[in-house]
């Protein structure tokens, strides 16, 4: 121990050496004086005799440092040799660790990219999003009146910009087939607020976003490559977007990403008309906080303006403002899911460590004799521990290295599988921080699983071990207790993970069995965006849709066709407040909200949504000034309870006595538009040809086609049907309804997949762990079993003895794990749908699974025990 102490000694060895040498000089000087020298001569003579103190100190220090290095190399060489001597153990340990560490590195690199790394804009922690907050909506978009006022009156930001993102992209024409390109219109301050520069050309000039100026667009590097053929002379060229000509003024570098999925390809200038409006609320606003301005001050600032504007437009509802850091908005719900995964993956690593520690213990008892000899010939306890640790850390690092390879492969598979389920997915990768994290957990793991056998080894009593003639001597009961504890711990952890995975799986199956309100088979959907330049009037729009539906319904293989602004299960485009006839108008009051969806009459037939009362839309509803509505069951239940709503009237939009009255003509079944996991909301359907609507809303509509058979079979016919009416129109996002349903549960399915894989890994490691311990125990107790058999124990009793020990360990593990899981799964609550975090069915199933697989794992060693030949076993000594 002394040597170990001097390695880490807290006393200052340099100062001690100084003191030692000083003492020597002083003593010598004193002696010289006593011999009659003058004090000065005495001191000089002493110095001369001792020599150069600096040199002595250097030599002495070298004695120690060299020793440390030398010992390190010795230990390392010893570790390499001893690992090479037992390749089976080494392989098992390295693989186990690689799985545990690799899983951690992979998940950590996602956490690192999504949660830890700053957004890829300079000074990104100062970038925030401004929302409107009202009674109805927590974080809502702004109206143009709000943004224009904010731009002029705000005092908290160095710059603000409005962003209008198009769900369906902008239609690019004149470059081959018409195609929808994802993009956002942005006001002039967008790029300067983000502090990003183009790689080519320029961004917007001041005033370029004022109405009347020529339209300009900044494009992404990818767009420039794909559509402008990487031609530097493309700057100044004109491209047609949504039927209007925009001049390309700049190209952003490939590293620049923005947009809901970081996938915007172009940023056309947004010219807000000077007519301030509110509603609609359609703008997202980014701002760069001035240095020294905190979120709270910015909140107060934007709230002041939002209140002013809501007083100016009293019927649009009371609002305040709220400022949220951009990163928080982008990361969203992913934070919770990621932290949970990180926890799960940490548990897997713990199990892996336990497994290796248990392997080490088993091996250590085989090496007890060797250790005893080494202790007897003078290797100190410290030295034995440090050698054992060196070996473990080397194992940890080998596992970590292989783990990184697995992590990198796993990450690629993970991202290929589901890029959209993770925000900032394109930033995920193995960077320096991931490497450092991996190194730390690899070394940490090595120390943790190394300490158990290290102390076990150091506790070896050389005399007893040497006296024992059997080389594979029986370890003390302490080591066996260690092993049992490790197995119990392993099963507790595995139970926690399995319970989590079980709850998520159950939740997903509940989610997928939700009734969406329609029959999804045989349905093909697509999205059309009619360019405003060519479809200016309501007449042009409705006539196009009418002819389209007519043509499609006469296409062979098509049963029915309809159009709609929103699509189930989660593509809701619009909600609108409504007021029932007879309710008073109260300024500043918030009206109830309903989903409002322009559709064609056959939309209900195409989706198979049942008509429950009244009638669908008909030709008579086309008469000018006629306004009709269909409402869903939920709206009846919530707002017309106990009465027949057919014939009743409502006004839609914000409170305005002059808006037209809509007569309810029928009631249809509930359809999910906001995700399968959400409650049904009140829904109002209006005919797409209703003239109370701004044609602006129906420029972009979904097409719903019910086929007689396989819906993909009519895809070509649907495309050519559209192009026979307008060959410049892109048919976007063609998908079957089954695909849409699957996509809508992509994020939870992704979580389930990951979690289930981790739980599976934990289960496999736990099985290996218990198998190893039981099999090792049988090997060790061969003699004892032989004696028992010789004394008359039957094979069944032996079998029960071995199996019983395994079962006891598992039961204790399951009990502890259940208690822990009951506490921990509460953390999953926000991710569960329609399943309690303590669902007894899931917990019971998980416990049964664990016990059964553990018994299977113990079966083989138990059977081997029954085949022990008592005579051979007794001779074995």
């Amino acid at each position, binding site marked *: 121990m002394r040597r170990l102490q001097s390695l880490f000694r807290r006393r200052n060895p340099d100062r001690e050496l100084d*003191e030692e040498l000083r003492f020597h000089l002083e*003593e010598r000087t004193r002696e010289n004086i006593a011999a009659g020298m003058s004090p000065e001569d005495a001191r000089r003579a002493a110095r001369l005799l001792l020599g*150069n103190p600096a040199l*002595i100190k250097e030599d002495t220090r070298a004695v120690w440092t060299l020793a440390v290095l030398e010992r390190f190399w010795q230990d390392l060489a010893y570790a390499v040799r001893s690992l090479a001597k037992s390749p089976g153990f080494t392989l098992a340990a390295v693989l186990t660790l690689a799985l545990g560490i690799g899983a951690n590195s992979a998940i950590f690199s996602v956490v690192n990219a999504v949660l830890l790394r700053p957004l890829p804009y300079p000074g990104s922690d100062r970038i925030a999003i401004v929302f409107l907050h009202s009674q109805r909506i927590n974080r809502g978009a702004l109206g143009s009146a709000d943004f224009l006022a904010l731009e002029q009156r705000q005092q908290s930001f160095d710059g603000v910009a409005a962003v209008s993102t198009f769900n369906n992209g902008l239609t690019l024409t004149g470059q081959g087939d018409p195609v929808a390109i994802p993009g956002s219109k942005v006001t002039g301050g967008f790029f300067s607020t983000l502090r990003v520069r183009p790689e080519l050309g320029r961004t917007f000039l001041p005033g370029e976003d004022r109405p009347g100026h020529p339209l300009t667009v900044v494009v992404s590097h990818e767009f420039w490559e794909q559509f402008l053929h990487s031609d530097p002379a493309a700057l100044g060229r004109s491209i047609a977007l949504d039927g209007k000509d925009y001049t390309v003024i700049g190209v952003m570098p490939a590293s620049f990403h923005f947009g809901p999925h970081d996938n915007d390809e172009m940023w056309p200038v947004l010219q807000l008309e000077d007519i301030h409006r509110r509603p609609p609320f359609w703008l997202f606003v980014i701002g760069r906080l001035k240095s020294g301005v905190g979120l709270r001050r910015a909140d107060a600032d934007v709230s002041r303006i939002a209140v002013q504007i809501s007083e100016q437009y009293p019927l649009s509802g009371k609002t305040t403002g709220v400022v949220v850091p951009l990163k928080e908005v982008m990361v969203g719900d992913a934070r919770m899911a990621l932290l949970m995964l990180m926890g799960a993956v940490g548990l897997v690593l713990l199990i892996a460590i336990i497994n290796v520690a248990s392997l080490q213990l088993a091996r250590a008892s085989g090496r007890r004799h060797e250790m005893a000899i080494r202790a007897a010939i003078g290797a100190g306890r410290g030295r034995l521990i440090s050698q054992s640790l060196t070996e473990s850390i080397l194992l940890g690092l080998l596992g970590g290295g292989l783990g990184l390879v697995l992590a990198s492969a796993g990450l690629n598979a993970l991202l290929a599988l589901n890029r959209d389920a993770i925000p900032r997915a394109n930033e995920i990768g193995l960077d320096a921080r991931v490497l450092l994290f991996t190194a730390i957990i690899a070394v940490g793991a090595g120390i943790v699983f190394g300490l158990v056998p290290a102390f076990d080894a150091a506790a070896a009593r050389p005399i007893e071990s040497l006296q024992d003639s059997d080389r594979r001597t029986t370890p003390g009961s302490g080591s066996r207790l260690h092993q049992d504890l490790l197995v119990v711990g392993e099963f507790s952890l595995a139970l926690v993970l399995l319970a989590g995975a079980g709850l998520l799986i159950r939740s997903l199956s509940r989610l997928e069995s939700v009734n969406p309100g329609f029959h999804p088979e045989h349905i093909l959907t697509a999205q059309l965006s009619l360019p405003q330049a060519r479809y200016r009037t309501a007449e042009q729009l409705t006539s196009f849709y009418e002819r389209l539906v007519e043509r499609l319904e006469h296409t062979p293989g098509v049963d029915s066709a309809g159009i709609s602004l929103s699509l189930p299960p989660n593509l809701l485009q619009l909600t609108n407040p409504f007021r029932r006839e007879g309710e008073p108008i109260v300024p500043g009051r918030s009206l109830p909200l309903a989903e409002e969806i322009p559709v064609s009459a056959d939309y209900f037939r195409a989706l198979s949504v049942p008509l429950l009362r009244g009638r669908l839309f008909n030709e008579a509803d086309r008469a000018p000034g006629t306004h009709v509505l269909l409402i869903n069951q939920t709206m009846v239940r919530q707002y017309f309870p106990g009465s027949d709503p057919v014939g009743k009237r409502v006004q839609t939009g914000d409170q305005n006595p002059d808006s037209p009255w809509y007569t309810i003509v029928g009631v249809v079944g509930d359809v999910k538009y906001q995700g399968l996991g959400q409650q049904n909301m009140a829904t109002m359907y209006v005919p797409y040809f209703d003239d109370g609507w701004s044609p602006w809303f129906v420029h972009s509509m979904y097409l719903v086609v019910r086929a007689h058979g396989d819906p993909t079979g009519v895809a070509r016919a649907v495309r050519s049907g559209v192009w026979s009416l307008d060959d410049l129109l892109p048919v976007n996002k063609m998908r079957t309804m089954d695909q849409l349903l699957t996509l809508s549960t992509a994020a939870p399915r992704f979580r389930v997949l990951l979690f289930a894989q981790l739980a599976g890994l934990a289960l496999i490691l736990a099985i290996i762990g218990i198998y190893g311990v039981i099999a090792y125990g049988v090997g060790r107790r061969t003699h004892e079993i032989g004696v028992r058999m010789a004394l008359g124990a039957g094979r069944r009793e032996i079998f029960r003895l071995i199996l019983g020990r395994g079962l006891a360990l598992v039961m204790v593990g399951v009990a502890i794990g259940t208690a822990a899981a009951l506490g921990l799964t509460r953390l999953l609550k926000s991710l569960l749908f329609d399943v309690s975090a303590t669902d007894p069915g899931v917990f019971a199933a998980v416990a049964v699974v664990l016990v059964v697989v553990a018994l299977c794992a113990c079966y083989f060693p138990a059977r081997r025990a029954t085949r022990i030949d008592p005579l051979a076993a007794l001779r074995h000594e």
Partner: protein
Amino acid sequence: MGNDKLQGALDLLILKVLARGPMHGYGITNRVKQLSGDVLQVEEGSLYPGLHRMERDGWIVADWKPSGKNRRAKFYRLTPAGRKRLAEEEKNWDRVTGAVAKVLRFA
């Protein structure tokens, strides 16, 4: 004789002095000088690295103890390993010097 052998001789002297009881570095030089009748003078520059090397190797251990008025000194003492080492070194020395003496007698 190579440096190693000289080192060996120094080690032997130090171990021998310490075999009679704990002693600090300065005391060791004096004792060697005194016991050898002023013939042997320990090279003081290599005394301390030598002491630390033996401490590192576990032959001797050191303690700080008071020495005289208000001062303390680092006292070295033999460990069992050091005692064993001393026995070996002494045997070795006898063998080598015996051999040298034989050669000198017959050459």
